[in-house]
């Protein structure tokens, strides 16, 4: 897990730059049409905050509970904005891709040992995003059901 620290540092220190790269992508990606008319000044802080929070739990022994906490709030915000679930999740997939794209661009994994670190970091990132996907979908689904329940009671 220590090998992942390099990526963790990058995520914590360059969250705003990563978020900008992500925003450029998400506003024109054909799988995220909701974001096409979004104000970049509004969505960049969302992504930057996401990277910051992710970097804080990256080395936790059991990151799932912490991820559930901040992804619950993230899901609530996207639900209020009426971002379709599949698009919101794809925007998260793009966030993950941009961690890697940024790391590659910064050429932080060059030597053989660093290449080994790359694989380790990649596995760790995937695990984090597996939790993120699950926690996000779980909360969003719960909110959808709550909304249906409320309307049924009226």
């Amino acid at each position, binding site marked *: 897990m220590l090998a992942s620290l390099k990526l963790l540092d990058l995520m914590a220190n360059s969250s705003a730059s990563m978020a900008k790269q992500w925003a450029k992508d998400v506003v024109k990606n054909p799988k995220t049409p909701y974001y096409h008319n979004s104000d970049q000044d509004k969505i960049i802080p969302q992504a930057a905050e996401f990277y910051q929070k992710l970097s804080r739990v990256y080395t936790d022994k059991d990151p799932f509970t912490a991820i559930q906490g901040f992804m619950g709030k993230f899901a609530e915000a996207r639900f209020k904005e009426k971002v379709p*679930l599949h698009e919101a*999740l794809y925007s998260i997939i793009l966030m993950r891709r941009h961690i890697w794209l940024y790391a590659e661009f910064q050429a932080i994994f060059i030597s*053989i040992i660093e*290449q080994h670190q790359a694989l380790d970091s990649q596995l760790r990132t995937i695990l984090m995003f*597996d939790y993120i*996907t*699950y926690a996000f979908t779980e909360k969003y*689904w719960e909110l959808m059901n709550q909304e249906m329940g409320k309307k049924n009671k009226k």
Partner: protein
Amino acid sequence: MQAYATKLIDLIELKAENIAKQWATDVMKHNRTPSYSSLPLDRVIERGVAFYRLFRQMSLANVPYEAAKNFSWKYAKDCYRDKIPLQEAVYALILLRRNLWLYAEFQGVFVSALELHQAVESLNRTILMYDYVSYQVIEKYQELIHAEVDKKLGPVKMTMNNPIIAIKSIYKSGLMGILLLGACILTYYYHATLGTGVIFTHLFYIPIILASVWWGKKGIFTAIFLAGLILISHVLFLKAVPFLDDIIRALMFIVIGGVVGWLMDGIRKIEDMYKANI
């Protein structure tokens, strides 16, 4: 990337059933996928095999995203039919990907330095495949929810789109005014001129029902007005005729108006819910 991933693709193709069995054991007892525990094992394995066979198809396809659609849509339909919550369906996909990787590790497919490099490439390919499939599954699953709501609310939609219901508000008030005026004239003619309580009051159900359909519970005021009309007219012009018949008629006006209004309010709520979720 294709060349690097070949080793993994070969393994998957050859051992699809074994990996699917391993996945089935995992997903059926995993605490994040409890709904799978009640499914028949064969059905779960079949789903896993379909996923692992997709790997080759996607690798050979010019547009892998398109190649994944058949599987993803079927997977979403199956999960929806089996009432598996969306987050569990997605986590089962995550486990499909993980088990593939665990099996490859267990088989010692990637050992040397070069193979380690292949491992990274293969890993990227499995993640890309998962990204596409998860997006398509979630999209389809939501589509299925909307289709079911659509199907259930079909008669409601037909009701709300009915031209009599969708008439403009100003015309509703105007038409109601004319109908009520007609009711007053009819009542005066029968009670004062003919001196009879003959059952012309059945015609009053037209404005009563229309008012309840248009204005829901508020439409009951039309029924109350018409009930009052026949009772007052009876007192004024039909002193010799027993009062009980008209009392029952007046009560029926209010009951019918109230029930129809209450039902229409319910239909409107369902319609609002439908609109909000489509």
